[in-house]
């Protein structure tokens, strides 16, 4: 008995040792990937989230005001200490050229703040001694307007929601309440809707075009199948930019398609096929088609022909057999392909930017716009967060339903 017990614990130890070794091996194998993901994926995404709400630089530009304004209850106008702190901060920030940055940031919340700060900054050195409250209001009567002080108090917190709110067409009103922006200024909600609409349309087009291709590939002889597969993957051998630009060549007014249509007499005037929605659909469908065909093909390859035969022998016409027996079995492929295409389409930038018109630009275009033209990283980040949330929620809602993890490519 004693011996048995001893060997029992021994066995457990041995087992633990092997299990531990397996674990260490697994961790060792995945560590490089994990590090790469951490550095190039999770950290940037985390920074983007942070960027979209970060407001700390305002406190660095106007440190004294940030401190003094905390004492103010937000009703009416603040007292003399806040005005004095503002004057001191402006005296310091204006020569350092950081005041303009604060002005731009506050202008985002309340138009007019930029000019107010620059004008005051220019003149603040000429002000006499205290009290400053009356002096500043005399310098510009906006300093006597409580709205500006409310914006300033909100703008000097460590974090701000104004960018995220703006990305959804919301803003703070004068009473610090979140309200929708006036209809004539609202753009982002319609851009998000447009992004979803274009992505859905492209997904549908890819499905309609890709399904027959995948079906043909799955049923063709190995030779034909290989040729089709190469043709399909050929798309990946040229750069996205080249492919998109060649669509412009093909689709423009004097391009190949229009010349063919004109010479064949089908149309009397050249069609507008590019720099509009049609061009976006054509180019995006072309680029994303393989991502629809491959999962569909992979699922279809796994469907033996005897199901359709069985349906036929049971009395179904070929069409009924196809619809009731074949298509339901491709559901996983349809789901996975659609999800991959849709999610990729949501983030498309280059293609709509090149072949689309102003009304065909998607969310990513505005991310780039805020980075490149406005140098407003916070707004770009906020839009990026919206895109990420959008993509993530579609994945969570539909990804599990279609069982995307069951799909193997090839």
């Amino acid at each position, binding site marked *: 008995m004693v011996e048995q017990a001893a060997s029992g614990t021994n066995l457990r130890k041995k087992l633990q040792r092997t299990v531990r070794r397996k674990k260490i091996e697994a961790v060792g194998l995945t560590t490089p990937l994990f590090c790469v993901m951490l550095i190039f994926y999770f950290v940037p995404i985390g920074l983007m989230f942070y960027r979209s709400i970060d407001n700390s630089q305002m406190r660095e530009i106007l440190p004294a005001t940030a401190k003094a304004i905390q004492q103010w209850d937000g009703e009416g106008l603040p007292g003399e200490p806040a005005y004095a702190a503002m004057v001191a901060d402006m005296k310091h920030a204006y020569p350092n050229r950081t005041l303009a940055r604060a002005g731009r940031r506050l202008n985002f919340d309340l138009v007019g703040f930029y000019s107010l700060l620059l004008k005051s900054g220019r003149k603040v050195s000429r002000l006499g001694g205290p009290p400053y409250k009356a002096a500043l209001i005399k310098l510009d009567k906006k300093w006597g307007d409580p709205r500006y002080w409310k914006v300033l108090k909100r703008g000097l917190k460590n974090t701000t929601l104004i960018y995220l709110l703006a990305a959804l067409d919301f803003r703070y009103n004068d009473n610090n309440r979140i309200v929708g922006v006036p209809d004539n200024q609202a753009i982002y909600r319609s851009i998000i809707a447009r992004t979803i609409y274009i992505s859905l349309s492209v997904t549908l087009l890819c499905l309609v075009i890709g399904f027959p291709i995948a079906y043909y590939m799955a049923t063709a002889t190995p030779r034909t199948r290989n040729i089709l597969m190469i043709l399909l993957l050929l798309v990946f051998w040229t750069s996205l930019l080249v492919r998109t630009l060649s669509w412009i060549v093909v689709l423009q007014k004097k391009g190949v398609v229009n010349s063919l249509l004109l010479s064949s007499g089908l149309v009397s005037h050249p069609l507008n096929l590019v720099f509009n929605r049609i061009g976006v659909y054509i180019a995006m469908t072309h680029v994303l088609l393989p991502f629809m065909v491959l999962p569909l093909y992979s699922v279809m390859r796994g469907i033996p022909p*005897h*199901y359709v*035969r069985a*349906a036929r*022998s*049971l009395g*179904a016409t*070929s069409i009924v057999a196809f619809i009731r027996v074949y298509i339901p*079995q491709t559901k996983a492929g349809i789901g996975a392909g659609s999800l991959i295409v849709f999610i990729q389409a949501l983030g498309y930038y280059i293609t709509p930017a090149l072949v689309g018109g102003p009304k065909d630009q998607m969310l990513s275009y505005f991310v780039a716009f805020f980075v490149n033209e406005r140098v407003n990283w916070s707004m770009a980040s906020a839009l990026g967060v919206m895109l990420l949330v959008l993509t993530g929620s579609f994945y969570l809602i539909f990804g599990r339903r279609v069982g995307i993890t069951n799909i193997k490519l090839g």
Partner: protein
Amino acid sequence: MTTDDFHVRFNRVQKSYDGVTLVVKDLNLNIGKGEFVTMLGPSGSGKTTCLMMLAGFEAPTQGEIVFNGRPINNIPPHKRGIGMVFQNYALFPHMTVAENLAFPLQVRRMSKSETAQKVRRALDMVQMGEFGDRYPAQLSGGQQQRIALVRALVFDPELVLMDEPLGALDKQLREKMQYEIRHIHEQLGVTVVYVTHDQSEALTMSDRIAVFNDGVIQQLASPNDLYERPENSFVAQFIGENNELNGTVVSLNDGIAQVTLDNGEQVFALAVTVEEPDKPALLSIRPERVVINPDETGAAHTIEGHVHELIYLGDHIRCRMTVGGNEQFIVKVPNAANNRRLVVGEHVRVGWTAEDCRAFATLQ
């Protein structure tokens, strides 16, 4: 019986997939109503192709297939009204068992109540009444097989085709299902065309068996005739176990051939396809028909055998010996009380009646 009385008739049917070789060569086969006919043969012998032509999934290159008195060459599969059980069952994975069974009724636009009633009756026929809501993946192999079987029967076809339906089952279940299929056939009186490469399955179930090889029916006969009276060496080899001996015909007398074996010994055999003396012949004899140390009265002759190996199998002993130059000559010795035990290395006399040994002509 005139030709029109047959339920299914293959009339000079040929099939080629590539335009060069014929998979099915000049097939003629008549199947009576209510008959259970099995197409038996090695893989690639054309039996499945024949079944597919009958089902309508392949078109004959030449010839005519007649079903219920009318040619069906140009009738698409769904209009033939022929039930079919597939090798891998082909139960639709996205439908429940009940939906699978209802499918052939729905596409025939049968009313809902009638469909439900027929589905119920079909499930009861195989004692699976409570499985209607399950999906095929939730059933065992035998259960899937039963559902596939009743699905092919639920729309009351007069003809059911079965393409190696029991191939995926283990031995015990296979034997059980063989009886079940046989009973359903007797109960419903449908005509069954069954394809298999398993000869014991064919012998168990069929009224008649068509042995296929190389695109040709080698023999069409009842199981009993096929086993006892094979018409050529292929059938003799394919059905059951057989010992082969090579020799030359010496004389023919009243259907009995006297044959000199390659080692010079003389035996008698039933002349099946040998027609004249001095021609080479292949003798075929079943292991259980060989008698060890025969009393001279029963056997036509005795020849020498040299025992190499004994395998104890309980009810009989399998003995490998050299007989007439064949080192792989097998004899099944019944494990009876009065039989003497053989010893390895021993020389014994073996013999058989001329009727048990069949002589076939061979090519030079």
